[in-house]
Protein backbone atom coordinates (compact mmCIF):
# COMPACT_ATOMS: atom_id res chain seq x y z
CA UNK A 1 0.00 0.00 0.00
CA UNK A 2 1.38 3.41 -0.93
CA UNK A 3 1.16 6.25 1.53
CA UNK A 4 1.14 9.81 0.31
CA UNK A 5 2.24 12.46 2.75
CA UNK A 6 1.07 16.00 2.15
CA UNK A 7 2.92 18.77 3.93
CA UNK A 8 0.75 21.89 4.18
CA UNK A 9 3.77 23.89 5.32
CA UNK A 10 5.99 22.85 2.45
CA UNK A 11 7.19 25.53 0.08
CA UNK A 12 8.79 24.83 -3.24
CA UNK A 13 10.53 28.17 -2.98
CA UNK A 14 10.40 30.18 0.23
CA UNK A 15 9.52 33.84 0.05
CA UNK A 16 12.72 35.86 -0.07
CA UNK A 17 12.97 38.20 2.88
CA UNK A 18 15.13 41.31 2.67
CA UNK A 19 17.53 42.32 5.39
CA UNK A 20 16.63 45.17 7.73
CA UNK A 21 18.29 48.52 7.10
CA UNK A 22 21.76 48.75 8.59
CA UNK A 23 22.68 51.29 11.23
CA UNK A 24 24.02 54.64 9.98
CA UNK A 25 26.94 54.27 12.36
CA UNK A 26 27.85 52.85 15.73
CA UNK A 27 28.04 55.94 17.93
CA UNK A 28 25.06 56.34 20.22
CA UNK A 29 23.48 53.05 19.25
CA UNK A 30 22.26 50.36 21.63
CA UNK A 31 23.61 46.96 20.64
CA UNK A 32 22.11 43.77 22.03
CA UNK A 33 24.51 40.92 22.66
CA UNK A 34 22.45 37.75 22.73
CA UNK A 35 24.16 34.80 24.36
CA UNK A 36 22.85 31.46 23.13
CA UNK A 37 24.14 29.82 26.33
CA UNK A 38 26.81 27.56 24.87
CA UNK A 39 30.04 27.27 26.86
CA UNK A 40 32.67 29.99 26.37
CA UNK A 41 30.29 32.25 24.50
CA UNK A 42 30.08 34.55 27.49
CA UNK A 43 33.83 35.23 27.40
CA UNK A 44 33.59 36.04 23.70
CA UNK A 45 30.66 38.38 24.31
CA UNK A 46 32.39 40.01 27.28
CA UNK A 47 35.21 41.04 24.95
CA UNK A 48 32.81 42.22 22.23
CA UNK A 49 30.98 44.25 24.86
CA UNK A 50 34.18 45.98 25.93
CA UNK A 51 35.22 46.84 22.38
CA UNK A 52 31.79 48.00 21.28
CA UNK A 53 31.47 50.19 24.37
CA UNK A 54 34.91 51.72 23.69
CA UNK A 55 33.68 52.60 20.22
CA UNK A 56 30.77 54.66 21.51
CA UNK A 57 27.77 52.35 21.59
CA UNK A 58 25.81 51.07 24.55
CA UNK A 59 25.65 47.32 25.05
CA UNK A 60 22.79 45.37 26.58
CA UNK A 61 23.28 41.71 27.38
CA UNK A 62 20.65 39.05 26.95
CA UNK A 63 20.76 35.29 27.39
CA UNK A 64 18.61 32.59 25.86
CA UNK A 65 17.45 29.93 28.31
CA UNK A 66 18.72 27.25 25.92
CA UNK A 67 20.52 27.04 22.59
CA UNK A 68 18.32 24.13 21.55
CA UNK A 69 15.42 26.32 20.45
CA UNK A 70 14.71 29.85 19.30
CA UNK A 71 14.70 32.63 21.86
CA UNK A 72 11.38 33.11 23.66
CA UNK A 73 9.09 35.61 22.04
CA UNK A 74 9.20 37.89 25.09
CA UNK A 75 12.98 38.03 24.91
CA UNK A 76 12.95 38.85 21.21
CA UNK A 77 10.32 41.49 21.83
CA UNK A 78 12.41 43.08 24.58
CA UNK A 79 15.51 43.14 22.39
CA UNK A 80 13.59 44.67 19.48
CA UNK A 81 12.09 47.28 21.79
CA UNK A 82 15.24 48.24 23.68
CA UNK A 83 17.99 47.98 21.10
CA UNK A 84 19.03 49.20 17.66
CA UNK A 85 20.88 46.06 16.54
CA UNK A 86 21.79 42.58 17.74
CA UNK A 87 24.78 40.28 17.69
CA UNK A 88 24.05 36.65 18.59
CA UNK A 89 26.81 34.26 19.61
CA UNK A 90 28.33 31.71 19.78
CA UNK A 91 27.21 28.54 18.03
CA UNK A 92 29.71 25.69 17.84
Amino acid at each position, binding site marked *: MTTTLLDPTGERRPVERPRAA*RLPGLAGQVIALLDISK*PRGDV*FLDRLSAVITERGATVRRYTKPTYTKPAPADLRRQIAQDCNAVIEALAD
Partner: protein
Amino acid sequence: MHDITALEATGLPGVFVASEEFVAAAATQAAALGFDPPRVFVPHPIQDRSDDEMRALADAVVDDLLQRLCAS
Protein backbone atom coordinates in the same frame (compact mmCIF):
# COMPACT_ATOMS: atom_id res chain seq x y z
CA MET B 1 19.73 31.87 12.75
CA HIS B 2 16.05 31.75 13.60
CA ASP B 3 16.51 34.47 16.20
CA ILE B 4 18.33 36.81 13.84
CA THR B 5 15.76 36.09 11.13
CA ALA B 6 12.90 36.94 13.50
CA LEU B 7 14.61 40.08 14.81
CA GLU B 8 15.52 41.29 11.33
CA ALA B 9 11.85 40.90 10.40
CA THR B 10 11.06 43.49 13.10
CA GLY B 11 13.50 45.91 11.48
CA LEU B 12 16.42 45.24 13.80
CA PRO B 13 19.71 44.65 11.96
CA GLY B 14 21.49 41.59 13.25
CA VAL B 15 24.41 39.27 12.74
CA PHE B 16 25.22 35.91 14.25
CA VAL B 17 28.51 34.27 15.07
CA ALA B 18 29.14 30.57 14.71
CA SER B 19 32.12 28.29 14.42
CA GLU B 20 33.29 27.21 10.98
CA GLU B 21 31.52 23.88 11.44
CA PHE B 22 28.29 25.72 10.69
CA VAL B 23 29.19 27.20 7.31
CA ALA B 24 27.34 24.64 5.21
CA ALA B 25 24.42 24.28 7.62
CA ALA B 26 23.96 28.05 7.74
CA ALA B 27 23.80 28.25 3.95
CA THR B 28 21.25 25.44 3.83
CA GLN B 29 19.15 26.99 6.55
CA ALA B 30 19.28 30.41 4.91
CA ALA B 31 17.95 28.92 1.67
CA ALA B 32 15.18 27.11 3.53
CA LEU B 33 14.16 30.23 5.45
CA GLY B 34 14.31 32.50 2.42
CA PHE B 35 16.53 34.84 4.41
CA ASP B 36 20.26 35.33 4.18
CA PRO B 37 21.32 36.76 7.54
CA PRO B 38 24.69 38.38 8.03
CA ARG B 39 26.99 35.90 9.67
CA VAL B 40 30.58 35.63 10.78
CA PHE B 41 32.43 32.39 11.39
CA VAL B 42 35.24 31.76 13.81
CA PRO B 43 37.66 28.82 13.94
CA HIS B 44 36.41 25.60 15.51
CA PRO B 45 36.50 24.26 18.20
CA ILE B 46 35.30 26.64 20.86
CA GLN B 47 34.62 24.81 24.08
CA ASP B 48 38.19 23.93 25.00
CA ARG B 49 39.62 27.38 24.39
CA SER B 50 41.13 29.51 27.12
CA ASP B 51 39.72 32.89 28.07
CA ASP B 52 42.61 34.60 26.26
CA GLU B 53 41.89 32.59 23.11
CA MET B 54 38.22 33.51 23.26
CA ARG B 55 39.09 37.18 23.63
CA ALA B 56 41.45 36.88 20.68
CA LEU B 57 38.65 35.36 18.59
CA ALA B 58 36.42 38.29 19.50
CA ASP B 59 39.13 40.79 18.59
CA ALA B 60 39.65 39.04 15.27
CA VAL B 61 36.01 39.40 14.17
CA VAL B 62 34.66 42.51 15.91
CA ASP B 63 35.33 44.80 12.95
CA ASP B 64 33.62 42.37 10.59
CA LEU B 65 30.64 42.12 12.91
CA LEU B 66 30.25 45.86 13.21
CA GLN B 67 30.61 46.34 9.46
CA ARG B 68 27.74 43.94 8.95
CA LEU B 69 25.55 45.94 11.32
CA CYS B 70 26.38 49.35 9.89
CA ALA B 71 25.73 50.84 6.49
CA SER B 72 29.22 52.29 6.30
